[in-house]
């Protein structure tokens, strides 16, 4: 019996790295409000810079402020959706890694998210509403994924969500309505990147791509519950003051991890990696805490058919403080990673001009603070403060209406040059846009 010191491809080191490859993937790139929140849940609101909590006078009130349903007297249904896209999302590398002169870009994907709202008056005071929408999500797929410098962190990161939100409103007084509801969230994550499995080429000492790893979960089997409440106060018909709160929703994900070998062309290395690499599908579990939010707004009807909306929104992103990755079958060690996000504020203003013909024009602006500290910025998500400009139009009658709105999102460039959780340094720049359309029927 003899021993050999050639502990090539030691399992311990590799397992450590297998855990590293999963960390942080459970975030996706933003295209609208900060973090990975998607607030474009109504076309009128989109046109008015998402300042709608103090307005909430159409079926999208189910999302923006369900207490606004209390002032709606007809059965109404609204269907529509948003298309979210990037104009550009580029990266320029810096030392020490990936180094000056390196670059990357994100695929110009478009994402379509649906929205459906129903408002049903049950009594003169009690209304029922139901919303189906996607308030969180998006994705970030990097071009040239097998060569892009950040491929060991992320090649593709996706979050999808679908909320079913039944809610009741009750008109306590002619001037005051309150609302409460439940929120069932379905969500999935899909995360991909390459790995060096914690080892280098034993013959040259250099790093190589040895495996591709894909984490995936099902939309239908991963859910979380939350609740929401709202208040709408209209001291006079021309002024509405709204407050809406949505609770944190934690979704516990059970998914699969699949490891696919990347062949180097060296049969010795490839053979050893083949022995090392986990085969087949392996269970993986994680959890994402979608943050609570408190939106406060006022809507003021001005002379000449103008409507002014002002709003300040707070999002408790500090609840998204960590990501915990668990591999139940021990294929890789569990891993915790602090994300260090902070609560964030957004400030919005919107204006609508209604014409007697039924047409309306809208415009808006908001400034949104990022919750993501510089240290956490990386190829998975490079969020930043942003200036957002909106415009929209619509045609509405008491029986039906159609609205279209759009946002242009100008992110401030973000440089990560001193501290980085992923040790990945560089400068990110991004512009994005959103188009939202909806159709309403009222009876």
């Amino acid at each position, binding site marked *: 019996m*003899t*021993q*050999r*010191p*050639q502990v090539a491809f030691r399992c311990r080191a590799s397992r*450590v790295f297998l855990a590293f490859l999963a960390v942080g993937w459970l975030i996706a790139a933003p295209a609208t409000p900060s973090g990975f929140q998607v607030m474009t849940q109504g076309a009128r609101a989109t046109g008015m810079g998402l300042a709608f909590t103090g307005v909430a006078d159409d079926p999208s009130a189910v999302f923006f402020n369900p207490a606004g349903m209390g002032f709606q007297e007809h059965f109404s249904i609204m269907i529509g959706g948003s298309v979210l896209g990037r104009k550009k999302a580029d990266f320029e590398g810096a030392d*020490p890694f990936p*180094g000056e002169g390196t670059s990357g870009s994100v695929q110009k994907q478009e994402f379509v998210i649906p929205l459906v709202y129903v408002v049903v008056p049950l009594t003169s005071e009690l209304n029922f509403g139901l919303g189906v929408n996607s308030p969180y999500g998006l994705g970030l797929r990097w071009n040239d994924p097998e060569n892009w410098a*950040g491929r060991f962190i992320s090649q593709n990161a996706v979050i999808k969500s679908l909320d079913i939100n039944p809610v009741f409103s009750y008109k306590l007084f002619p001037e005051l309505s309150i609302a409460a509801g439940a929120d069932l969230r379905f969500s999935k994550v899909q995360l991909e990147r390459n790995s060096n499995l914690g080892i280098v080429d034993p013959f040259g000492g250099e*790093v190589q791509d040895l495996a591709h790893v894909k984490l995936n979960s099902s939309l239908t089997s991963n859910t979380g519950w939350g609740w929401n409440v709202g208040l709408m106060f209209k001291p006079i018909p021309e002024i509405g003051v709204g407050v809406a709160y949505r609770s944190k929703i934690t979704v516990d994900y059970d998914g699969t991890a699949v490891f696919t070998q990347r062949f180097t062309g060296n049969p010795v290395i490839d053979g050893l990696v083949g022995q090392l690499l986990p085969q087949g599908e392996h269970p993986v579990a994680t959890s994402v805490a979608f943050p609570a939010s408190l939106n406060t707004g006022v809507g003021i009807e001005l002379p000449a058919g103008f409507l002014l909306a002002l709003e300040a929104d707070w999002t408790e992103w500090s609840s998204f403080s960590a990501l915990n990755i668990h591999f139940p079958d021990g294929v890789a060690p569990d891993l915790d990673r602090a994300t260090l996000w902070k609560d964030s504020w957004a400030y919005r203003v919107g204006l609508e001009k209604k014409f007697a013909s039924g047409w309306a024009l809208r415009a808006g602006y908001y400034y949104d603070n990022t919750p993501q500290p510089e240290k956490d910025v990386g190829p998975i998500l490079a969020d930043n403060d942003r200036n957002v400009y909106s415009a929209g139009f619509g045609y509405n009658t008491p029986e039906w209406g159609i609205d279209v709105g759009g946002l242009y999102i100008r992110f401030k460039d973000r440089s990560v040059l001193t501290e980085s959780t992923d040790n990945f340094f560089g400068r990110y720049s991004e512009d994005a846009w959103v188009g939202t359309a909806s159709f309403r029927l009222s009876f």
Partner: protein
Amino acid sequence: MKTNPVRSMVFGIALAVLCAGPAQAQFNKFVVVGDSLAAGEESNCIVERFQERSWARLAAGLLQQDFQQPLFAEQVATNPPTGYPCLGPILSGASISVGIVSQQGPNQNIQLGRPYDNLGFNGSPHIKDFVDLKTTVPGRSDLDNKAAAILRNCTGCPFEGLSAVDEANSLAPDLVGFWGGNNDALDALGAGAAIEGVTLTPVDAFTAKYEEVIEALSVSGRTLVVFNVPDIGAVPFVTTIPPVVVDPATRQPVLINGNPVPLLGPGDAAFPCEPVPPDQGCPLPPGTLVNLQAQPLLASGFGIPMALGGSGLPLPHGVFTPPATFTPGVILYPDDVTSIRDHVDGYNAAIAASASANGAILVDIHTLFDQVAAQGYTIGGITVTTSFITGGIFSYDGVHPSPIGYGIVADEFVKALNAAKGTNIPRPNFSQILFTPNVPSVGPPAPVTTVHADHGTRTVARGGTE
């Protein structure tokens, strides 16, 4: 229209100052002093391929310094080697082991008429040697041979009578990096025994000499950056072979009744041995470290109980026979490990105190390598570890860093310098460091046997940093 030349000059100077941006310390001359870790030794030798990717060379490049080194050619290995052998990976069937892939050749920069900017030298210098080794005597010792090639201070040589510190000071540098003192503790790893005054420098003696070195290097207007001593837990030379019997086919511990089987050793004062026949050694206690020099002995059945097909003979522990005879071993009992760690802690306390007293910048390599040993080092999603051969941070001797390891050290050097001095020296480019192969610059060696360090002598694989 007349112009006022004085006013124009003042305006020009003011404009230049405004355009210069944040004030930065400027370094005109960068010199490094130290042991093999400063010299850039890898895989048991110093050759240009390694020297050009050492932390000192990387740092000099980032500082935009002309940095003269004693560049040793890399040559095809002869059988037997005529130069210091360089180790590398050897494919044996489906397994990878370590053998000679090239050898160290002559100094290609020997004509330089002044001391080198990199005065790191190998041969296992201790802290005293940086100030006391003023005249080397080739042939006297391995240290003399190696130091003479770099310091060129042998009798009749250009810098006779000058220690490494003297040579550094003669260059009047305004930035000095010093990394020495490692061998005062880490020599015990290769010796296979921790013996105060023999394989370990007493802390008091270390402290006194370290202060002498630092005081000699501390000159008004000079920035001095010093490194401390890493822990042995980060060194694959003693962390690769477990102290239990391993099945060579599966590379997993052999289990008897669900328990691993310890290797055999001779015992020491803290762990006395009463062998149970037929074995002539006693089970190594948990926490014992086995160094890479044990490889050929294990292959011969040493340390393995007869019941498992071994010889039943113990792996040797280092033995000192007064007045001056030392026979190296290949194992470190837990009391050895504790003693080495206590000494390293004592040295590092002295280093920190001396750095503080002399205004030097301390690079805490000890803490960094503890973290790296525990978690690996991750950059851009790429993780490298301290695992032997495949981990990426250490070279093929299991003691000296690889280019990746030296890149990490260079990064720490720059970060410490920037933090302390407010400079904006760029950090190393890890894309180049991580993705550039490190392979011999010469053809395959003449057929030689795989390197197995001689048990009775200390030849190839060493415990210290040289």
